[in-house]
């Protein structure tokens, strides 16, 4: 206080206030940042603390430390409640398969748009850009019908033949994977990438007599690893956390994904909140690990999603 008084003899006037601001703006700035950081950490921290406390203590103090301490909730999640491992497996299958397919198919389509010449190319590319702005909810009902019972019940009768109009994949993991195995944003991202990519290597390969497919799989794909990894992380995070479609498609508990299972579990056993918290960490942790391992790519993936307009 003494130094403050010395430095600002006219503390009441506007200039004095400005001096006070000059002196304290950095500490204030850091205090605000630290405050927001604590807020960002709080949900995760409390989840961890209370998942390590017995079920009976889910709503009781102490808040800041797991006393009494127990690993019972994790034991319930991993061993005594058989559905949890199922949900985890289902989530991994959907996440990994969708990601692998999407990365491959987006790279293929992006390569075609960037490098090959074919009729209607410009038109299809523009149609894809328009589809990126379309709100997903408008196709929700037809999408459900196509994945499931079909848009025409019993199929389309055509001269004695019955053609099914749906994939009949209700309550199957394939039903969640199918519509998301390629998407417009990924194709767009790969197109932009291949456009900015030097052609020489591919041309050299073609001189050597390697066909388009050989060139693509042996040269183009390996060279674009970084971009593919970025797309893969973006896709995996999205599919791992997806909610609405799996909710509609997956009907019986043994086929649920982790998010669907967790919210169902809460409905069935709402008194076991500590178990829900422990289970929820299994949903957050893998993404967190991926995030720390590939932070650079995550940040890049978000940044590219922003630059499509800018």
């Amino acid at each position, binding site marked *: 206080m003494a130094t403050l008084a010395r430095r600002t003899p006219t503390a009441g006037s506007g200039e004095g206030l400005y001096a006070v601001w000059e002196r304290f703006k950095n500490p204030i700035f850091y205090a605000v940042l630290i405050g*927001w*950081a604590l*807020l*960002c*950490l709080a*949900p*995760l921290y*409390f989840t961890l603390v209370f998942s390590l406390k017995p079920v009976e203590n889910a*709503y009781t103090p102490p808040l800041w430390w797991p006393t009494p301490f127990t690993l019972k909730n994790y034991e319930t999640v991993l061993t005594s409640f058989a559905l949890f491992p199922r949900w985890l497996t289902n989530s991994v299958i959907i996440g990994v398969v969708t990601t692998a*397919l999407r990365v491959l*198919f987006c790279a*293929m*389509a992006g390569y*075609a748009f960037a490098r*090959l*010449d*074919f009729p209607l*190319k410009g038109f299809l590319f523009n149609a894809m850009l328009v*589809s990126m*702005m*379309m*709100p997903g*909810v*408008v*196709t929700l*009902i*037809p999408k459900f019908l*196509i994945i499931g*019972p079909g848009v*025409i019940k019993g199929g389309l009768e055509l001269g004695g033949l019955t053609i099914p109009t749906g994939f009949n994949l209700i309550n199957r993991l394939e039903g969640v994977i199918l*519509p998301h*195995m*390629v998407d417009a944003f990924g*194709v767009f991202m790969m197109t932009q990438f291949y456009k900015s990519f030097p052609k020489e290597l591919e041309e050299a390969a073609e001189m050597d007599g390697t066909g*388009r497919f050989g060139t693509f799989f042996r040269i183009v794909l390996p060279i674009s690893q970084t971009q593919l990894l970025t797309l893969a992380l973006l896709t995996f*995070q999205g599919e791992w956390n997806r*909610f*609405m479609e799996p*909710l*509609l498609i997956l009907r019986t508990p043994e086929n649920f994904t982790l*998010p669907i299972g*967790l*919210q169902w579990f*809460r409905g069935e056993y709402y008194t076991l*909140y500590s178990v*829900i*918290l422990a289970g*929820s960490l299994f*949903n*957050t942790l893998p*993404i*967190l690990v991926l*995030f*720390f391992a590939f932070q650079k790519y995550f*940040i890049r993936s978000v*940044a590219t999603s*922003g*630059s499509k*307009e*800018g």
Partner: protein
Amino acid sequence: MSTLARPGSAARSKRFTEAVTGYLFLSPWLFIFFTFIVFSLGWAVYLSFTRYNLLRPPEWWGLEGYQRVLTDDLFLEKALPNTFKYVLVVVPLQTIVSLVLAFAMDQQLRFRRVFRTIFYLPSVTSSVVISLIFIWLFAAQGVVNQIIGISYDWLGEVGTAFYIIMGMNIFTTSGTLMLIFLAGLQDIAPAIYEAASIDGASKLQQFLFVTIPMLRPVIFFVVTVGVIGCFQVFDQLYVMTRGGPLDSTTTVTYLIYKWAFQDTTIKMGQASALAIILTLIILAVTLLQRRVIEGSGAAAD
């Protein structure tokens, strides 16, 4: 041999091969695009003019579905106003919060990377998990009430439930949007800031008169994505409140879900009509917002 006779045909056959290859490479995307976007959109429009309950084939209904939507009390008095309220609160706040965070992360800071990592954490968590955590944090005997020493059912009361969900979504999207803004900020040449500070502009003035105008395209993108996303908010409402208490958190997308999949009498036609109406609203708002942001740009220049 004939290729020798007609020199053009070699080039033509090469073009043909390339076109076939192109479509082969494109085929997975084309299949999904036509099935789940083009055809689905067409079928959604068709269903919106029908009465359809899954048990019997769609029955032509003309504009009856639209009429029922536009006279439905739950839509007019709850879902529509709630949706607009949600968009009007969440979009500006999430844009401002993330822009300020990004601006702070663009300064010379100690532990900048640590801060950036922590600020991104809420965006890593899935919508369901963060909802489950917030239900428990804001329960009557939950952590929040224990800290402030009261007992109040935040998500069970009409006056607070929707605002808790709004606040949670602003909180969780701020990390992702911060990174988008940060990428935009790093494209602004430092020379512009140097020039501004030589002219005597304070940090706040630099933010208002350099950063914001330079970032206009990124702001447009963030607001557009925000508007499209917020008009379709669903996960958090489903997990946290199921549209309650007293329909105070029922939004248009939740109502579409309710009519098409949840009600005892399924109304897929009417739900499709509502989905088309929502799409038109989103389209109109996006175009309007584009004019506003471009208009303000013209005024500033």
